[in-house]
Every structure is written in C-alpha cells, then in structure tokens.
C-alpha cells in the first residue's frame, strides 16, 4: 500500500513513467526507488496500467470521412475552376461535408467568433470550468495572463457599479487563445472575451437564451456573453466605454 510520506514522489514517478523527467530529477527518484518498495510497486502499477490502456482500441475514422477529406486535400488551387459536386462524390457523408464546406465558403470573411463565444460561455458554466484564476483584484488577474497569452488584455473591476470581477481564465475562440474575464451581476455570470482584432463595429445578438454584446476599442475585440437581460449587459459594456476601453 502507498506510504503517505511518499506522496511527494508520485508526480515524479509518473513523470518518469511518461518520459517527462529531467536528468537531475531522475537521479533523485532512482535513489528513492532503490530504498522504497512502495514506490517501486507504484511504478509497476503505472506500467501495467499503461500496457492495458495502450492495448485499447483507437477508433479509426469512418472511410467516408477520410474520403471526403482526401478529396478536399487534392482540390485544385483557386486559379483552376473548382468542380465542387463532382470532386465530392463520395457517399452521402462526403456530399454532406461538401455542402457544409460550400456553405462556409459562401460566408463572409472569417468565422463569427462572437457567436463562438456563446458556446465557450456555456462550456465554462460547467462546474469547475469558470475560472483559472479566482480573484476580484484586477492586479492579480491581469498579471496571471502574462506568459499565457501573446497580448495583455485590459482588466478592470466594476464592483462599485454592481459588476464585480470574479476572476479570469484562458479560453479558446476562433483558433486562438483568448482572455476570458468573469464578472458577476446579482446571480448572473458575465463572460467577457477579449482578444486583439482589427475588426470594427458593435453588435448585439440573442441566441440560445444568451445575450451577447460586442464592441471594440484599443485594438481589441470585446464580446460579453451572459443570460443577464440585454439592458444590464449594455450597462456593463457602457462601463468599459466610460473607462476608456
């Protein structure tokens, strides 16, 4: 059985097992293992489990999906006239995917990250997902993003106006890491996504029971998402305007 005194060795044991240990850590671990039967048993247990896991099935992609993607990879450059339907004639799935891709190609430039923000907001509302850094102090939240993002998002607390900062997290929108600032308003949660963008224009949406207000300022795109009513969400956005965005 596991010795509680050995707990500090566990993550090292695991890192060694996963080939992630530095040479000096490996040396320390070897010395400990030589004198500790419990940790040797732990190591053997990890090895046995890995062997079992690696024998589990990796599910191969359905052939139709592969065929559709293969054809897509072989599509002629834009200069040559594309043969949309013909190029995709690969079963119902291939056609469905082709139709979707055709639809995407008809969309205006760039996907709508504003809309993707709603999905991220819903995902974040699952237990344990809301914040990576839990703090109402903007001087704690702002530096937390240092080194995690290649830009510095503005962070402000609006507790005095009834929109307290609750924390922040790293999120992922439109293929890039973005800052998500989390605010409270009574019992509602507001996610504010901030990323550098040359996009312009403000927008408001209502979708899936969530309100979205988007604006830009200072070279950043701001998208606030919440189940809060639109009037109060606008009030939140206005605070950023007053703060100089």
């Amino acid at each position, binding site marked *: 059985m596991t010795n509680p005194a050995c707990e500090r060795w566990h993550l090292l044991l695991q890192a060694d097992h996963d080939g*992630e240990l530095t040479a000096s850590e490996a040396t320390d671990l070897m010395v400990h293992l030589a004198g500790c039967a419990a940790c040797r048993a732990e190591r053997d247990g990890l090895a046995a489990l890995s062997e079992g*896991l690696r024998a589990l099935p990796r599910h*191969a992609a359905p052939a139709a999906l592969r065929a559709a993607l293969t054809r897509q990879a072989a599509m002629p*450059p834009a200069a040559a006239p594309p043969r949309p339907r013909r190029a995709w004639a690969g079963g119902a799935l291939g056609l469905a*995917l082709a139709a979707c891709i055709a639809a995407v190609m008809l969309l205006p430039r760039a996907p709508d990250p504003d809309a993707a923000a709603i999905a991220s907001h819903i995902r974040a509302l699952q237990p344990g997902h809301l914040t990576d850094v839990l703090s109402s102090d903007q001087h704690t939240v702002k530096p937390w993003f240092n080194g995690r993002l290649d830009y510095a998002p503005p962070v402000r607390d609006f507790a005095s106006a009834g929109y307290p900062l609750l924390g922040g997290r790293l999120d992922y929108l439109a293929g*890039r890491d973005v800052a998500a600032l989390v605010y409270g308003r009574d019992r509602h949660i507001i996610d504010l996504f901030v990323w550098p963008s040359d996009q312009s224009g403000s927008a408001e949406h209502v979708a899936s029971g969530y309100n979205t207000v988007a604006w830009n300022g200072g070279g950043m795109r701001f998208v606030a998402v919440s189940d809060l009513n639109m009037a109060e969400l606008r009030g939140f956005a206005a605070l950023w305007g007053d703060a100089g965005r």
Partner: protein
Amino acid sequence: MADTDDASRFARIALPHLDAAFSLARWLVRDAALAEDVVQEAMLRGLTYIRSYREENPKAWVLRIVRTTAFDHMAQQRRVAEVPLDHAAELPDPQRSPEAAFADAEGRTALARAVAALPDELRECIVLRELEDMSYRDIARIAGVPLGTVMSRLWRARQMLRGAALERQP
C-alpha cells in the same frame, strides 16, 4: 473568404491526424455517430481557423479543435438532460493480481468501461497521453490548462483506473 486554397491546405494538415481526431472524439463523447458529427463540425471549424494556424504541432492543433467541439457538444447535451453516467457493473474475478487485471480481453473490456466512466477532464488527459502519446505540454495546450493540472489529472485518472481494477477483485 475561405477558398479552395484554404480548404485544401487545411485538409493536408488534418488528414494525417484524422484517425487521432476521430478516436479522441469517440472516447470523449462515447458514441460513434456523435463522434462523427463532432469530427465533421471540427473539420469545418478548422477550415475557418486555418488562416490563424501557426502552431508548431499540427496534431495538437487539430486535436484541440476536436476536443473543443466535443466539449461543446457534451455541454449542450448536458443542458438538455442531466444524464447519469452508465457505470458498468464490474465482473469480479478471484484469480487475478492487479498487474494481470488488464492482460486479457475481459480485463481490457472492463478497463475500457472504467475509462468511459471517468470524469470528462480526466478521460481527456488519459486518452491523449496513453492512446495519442501526447506530451504533457501538448496536453496542456489541447485541454487549455496549466501543466501542473495535466499532471494531477493524469495521476487522478490513473489512480481511479487502478482502483476500478482492484474492485474487480473480491
């Protein structure tokens, strides 16, 4: 506008990792048909993201889009109905030692069930590490969590899986 250049460039990046993409989706959503939906949608999302693609590791980039899509599906499903996990009944077998617990077909079936019953975040980490052979750093990027979180999630996942194996002994 996403044009055929983007589409074919994206497909060339994604194609070598299509099986990994599907396998990850399959393990995450635990349903073959849903996994297919997830991968299709991920491929569309990836196509729209291709112009911001500047990752050094294409597999990690593709898997990150797949996992994000899968977690979106899972979150939306959870909103519709809070479905309890189907914890599979374990078959006790008095003859086995812990080390032999995963060695035969029956043991592997039980192990697959135990993986499926793990919390989503733990299942994601263990599948990326053991089945997709991703490094801690890549797992951190894919799951969007710090390295230390990856290590503790992996440890917890492994303890739970070994615990499930031990439960099979009387």
